[in-house]
C-alpha cells in the first residue's frame, strides 16, 4: 500500500474517532456500499467493475453541525482511492447559516445539465454516468445564507481553485482530440491557478421560495473548470502538443419553477460573459487562437404525471455570440447554436419494490443520444439491485462519440 494511501486511511480513522468521540447521542453515521459492474457490448468485456463505500458522519451541537463524507473506491484498473468528498461545519443562527469547509454546492433547476450549477466542479471520469451526487466535487468554500421571509441571500467564496476531473489517459471515457485528420494532438498537463486571493472564485444568489413560484438570480466570477487549449506546439510532421490553461469569466443567470395546474414548469438560463474559447485554424501545422465570447445557455422543462407515471421533458439551448468556425471545447468542435433534449419517465410497481425508469439525452445536430433505461428492485429495505443499459446512439456529438462504450450494468446498493 502506498504511503499516501496509508496517510489518508490514518486521517479518515482519526476523523472517525474524533467525531464518534464528540457525544454518542449527537452523532449519526450513515452510508452506502455499492458494487457496480458494466459489460461493454462492442468489446464483449467487463469494462467497469467498481466497489464504493461512501460514509456520512454527522455531528450536532446546539447551533452547529459537522458533516464529514469520506469514501473509498476501487476501480477496474485504477489504484484504490480514498478521499473526502465533503467536510464542513454549519453554524445556524436565527436568520442566517454559515457553512465553512469542503462542500459540494448545487444550484439551479436543471436535471442532468449544468447551467447556473457551475459553483462546484465535476467528476467526469465516468463521463456523466456516475450517481448524480457523486458528479459534484467538493470545493473548499465559505458559504453564507441570510433569510428574510421568503427571500434568501447567499454568498460563496472559494479561495482555492479545484478543476473538473477528466478521464485518465487509459480510461474508456478518454477521447482523442480528433480535430485534423492525420494530425495527433497530445494534451499537455495544465497548471492550476496559484493559491492566491486574486484567484478566488465568488458567487452570489438571491432566491425567492414561494407557493406560486420560486425563483433565483445568480452571478459569479469564476474559472473555467475544464481547461481550454491555449496554444499548439508542433513536435513532428504530424504531431502537436496542446498546451492548456484555465480561464476567467463572469456569469449571470437565474432559474424559476412554478406549478401550472398539474404540470410543473422549470426554467433556467445563464450568460457566460467573455468566456475563453479556443479557435483552431487547420493549417500546416494547425494553430490556436484564444478568443473571448459571450455564451448563453437556457433550459425549459416540464414535469407532470400521467397514470401514476412521473414524466419530465427538458429543452436545453446553447448559443455562442460572435461565433466563428473553429471554436472548440474539450477537443470537440462547437456550433453557434446547440439544441439538446432530455426525457425522463419513472414508475413504481409491486408496492414500490420495483422502479422502472428511463432517461434520454438527445442532440439534434448531429443526431445522437444517450438512452438509459433501468429497473431497480428493492430486495429489502435499504438494499437495492439495479440493472440497466447505457446506450450511446449515433457516431458523433456529445453522446454519439462514445458509441463504443454502450454497456449493460448491474449495481447492488446497500444503504445503512
Amino acid at each position, binding site marked *: 500500500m502506498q504511503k499516501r494511501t496509508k496517510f489518508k486511511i490514518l486521517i479518515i480513522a482519526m476523523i472517525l474517532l474524533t467525531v464518534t468521540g464528540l457525544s454518542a447521542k449527537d452523532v449519526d453515521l450513515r452510508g452506502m456500499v455499492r458494487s457496480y459492474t458494466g459489460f461493454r457490448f462492442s468489446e464483449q468485456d467487463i469494462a467497469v467493475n467498481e466497489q464504493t463505500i461512501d460514509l456520512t458522519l454527522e455531528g450536532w451541537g446546539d447551533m452547529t453541525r459537522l458533516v464529514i463524507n469520506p469514501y473509498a473506491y476501487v476501480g477496474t484498473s485504477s489504484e484504490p482511492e480514498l478521499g473526502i468528498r465533503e467536510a464542513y461545519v454549519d453554524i445556524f443562527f436565527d436568520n442566517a447559516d454559515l457553512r465553512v469547509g469542503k462542500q459540494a454546492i448545487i444550484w439551479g433547476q436543471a436535471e442532468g445539465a449544468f447551467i447556473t450549477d457551475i459553483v462546484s466542479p465535476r467528476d467526469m471520469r465516468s463521463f456523466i454516468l456516475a450517481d448524480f451526487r457523486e458528479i459534484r466535487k467538493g470545493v473548499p468554500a465559505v458559504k453564507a445564507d441570510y433569510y428574510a421571509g421568503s427571500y434568501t441571500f447567499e454568498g460563496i467564496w472559494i479561495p482555492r481553485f479545484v478543476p473538473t476531473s477528466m478521464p485518465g489517459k487509459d480510461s474508456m471515457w478518454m477521447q482523442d482530440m480528433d480535430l485534423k485528420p492525420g494530425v495527433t494532438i497530445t494534451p499537455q498537463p495544465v497548471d492550476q491557478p496559484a493559491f492566491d486571493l486574486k484567484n478566488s472564485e465568488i458567487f452570489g444568489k438571491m432566491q425567492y421560495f414561494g407557493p406560486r413560484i420560486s425563483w433565483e438570480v445568480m452571478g459569479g466570477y469564476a474559472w473555467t473548470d475544464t481547461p481550454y487549449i491555449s496554444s499548439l506546439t508542433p513536435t513532428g510532421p504530424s504531431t502537436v502538443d496542446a498546451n492548456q490553461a484555465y480561464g476567467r469569466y463572469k456569469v449571470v443567470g437565474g432559474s424559476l419553477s412554478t*406549478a401550472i395546474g398539474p404540470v410543473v414548469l422549470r426554467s433556467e438560463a445563464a450568460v457566460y460573459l467573455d468566456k475563453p474559447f479556443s479557435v483552431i485554424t487547420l493549417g500546416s501545422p494547425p494553430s490556436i487562437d484564444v478568443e473571448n465570447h459571450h455564451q448563453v445557455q437556457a433550459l425549459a422543462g416540464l414535469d407532470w404525471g400521467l397514470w401514476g407515471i412521473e414524466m419530465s421533458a427538458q429543452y436545453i439551448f446553447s448559443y455562442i455570440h460572435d461565433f466563428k468556425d473553429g471554436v472548440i471545447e474539450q477537443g470537440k468542435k462547437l456550433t453557434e447554436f446547440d439544441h439538446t433534449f432530455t426525457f425522463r419517465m419513472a414508475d413504481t410497481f409491486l408496492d414500490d419494490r420495483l422502479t422502472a425508469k428511463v432517461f434520454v439525452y438527445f442532440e439534434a445536430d448531429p443526431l445522437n443520444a444517450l438512452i438509459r433505461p433501468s429497473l431497480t428492485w428493492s430486495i429489502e429495505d435499504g438494499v437495492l439491485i439495479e440493472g440497466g443499459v447505457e446506450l450511446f446512439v449515433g457516431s458523433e456529438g456529445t453522446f454519439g462519440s462514445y458509441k463504443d462504450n454502450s454497456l449493460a450494468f448491474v449495481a447492488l446498493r446497500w444503504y445503512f
Partner: protein
Amino acid sequence: MKNMRTVLIMLVIGLFLTTTLTAQITGRQVMEQVYSRDSGNNMSANLSMTITNARGSTRERSIVQFRQDDGTVENKIMFFTAPADVRNTSFLSYSYADGRKDDQWIYLPALSRVKRIASDKTKDSFMGSDFTYDDMGVRHPSADTHTLLREEVIDGWNCYVVESVPVDSSSDFAKTISWIIKDEWIGLKKEFYSAKGNVARRLVINESARFDDIWVITNMTMSNLEKNTSTRITMDNVSFNNNLSANFFTERQMKIGPRI
C-alpha cells in the same frame, strides 16, 4: 274562548318542539366540524408505518412530521428517517383552506436539491403504502358533497354516518362513508367505495388519545380490500404548540432535517 286559546298555545309549542327536534345537523356541518376541530397551532409527532403485502410480509417506514395551521394555510413537513435508502428525504406541503390545490416540494438527498412537485400526486400511493398523499392531508369539506345517512353506535360511541361524494368526478373513489363521533368530531372509520360500488379501502381508527385536550389519532389501519394489503400507522412523541421558527416550513428546514 279560553279553551281555544290554550289549544292554540299548545299547537304553537308543539309545532316549535317538532321543528327543533327535526332540525338535525347536516352532513356538511358534520364534516365542517371535523375540519375545524381544534388541532393546536402546531403539532409534531413520530410516525411509524408498517406496510403488509398480500403475502403477509411487512416493511417499515419512519417519519418525523411537523404541522402548523393558521386557519388559512396548513403547512406540513415530513422527514423520512427510515429505511436507510430514503433517509433524509423530506416532503413539504402547503394546503389551503379555500380549497386551492396544494403546493408541494420534495427534497431528495441523492440530488441535494429541493424540487417542486405537481399536486396531482394526491391519488398516488404515499411511500408505497395503502395511504395516498390525499389521505395524509386534511381534505377540505368543499371537495365533496356530504349527506348525513344515519346515526350509529360503535364501540359505545354515538356516531354520525356521513356519505361524501367527490365534487371532482376524476377522483379515484366514487364516494366515502365516514363514522364521526358525535360532539368529539373525530372519525372512527371510513370506507372508500369504487365506481363499481364495492368498498375498495377501509380506514379503521384503532386508537385515539387526548394530548393537551386535543384529540389525536395514534393508531390507524388502512386496508386495501382489492389488493389484500394493509398499512398501519402509529404515532408517538406527540407534542403541540412547539416553538417553531418562522423559517421552519421552508426549503431551509427541508435540507437541515427534523431539528427544531
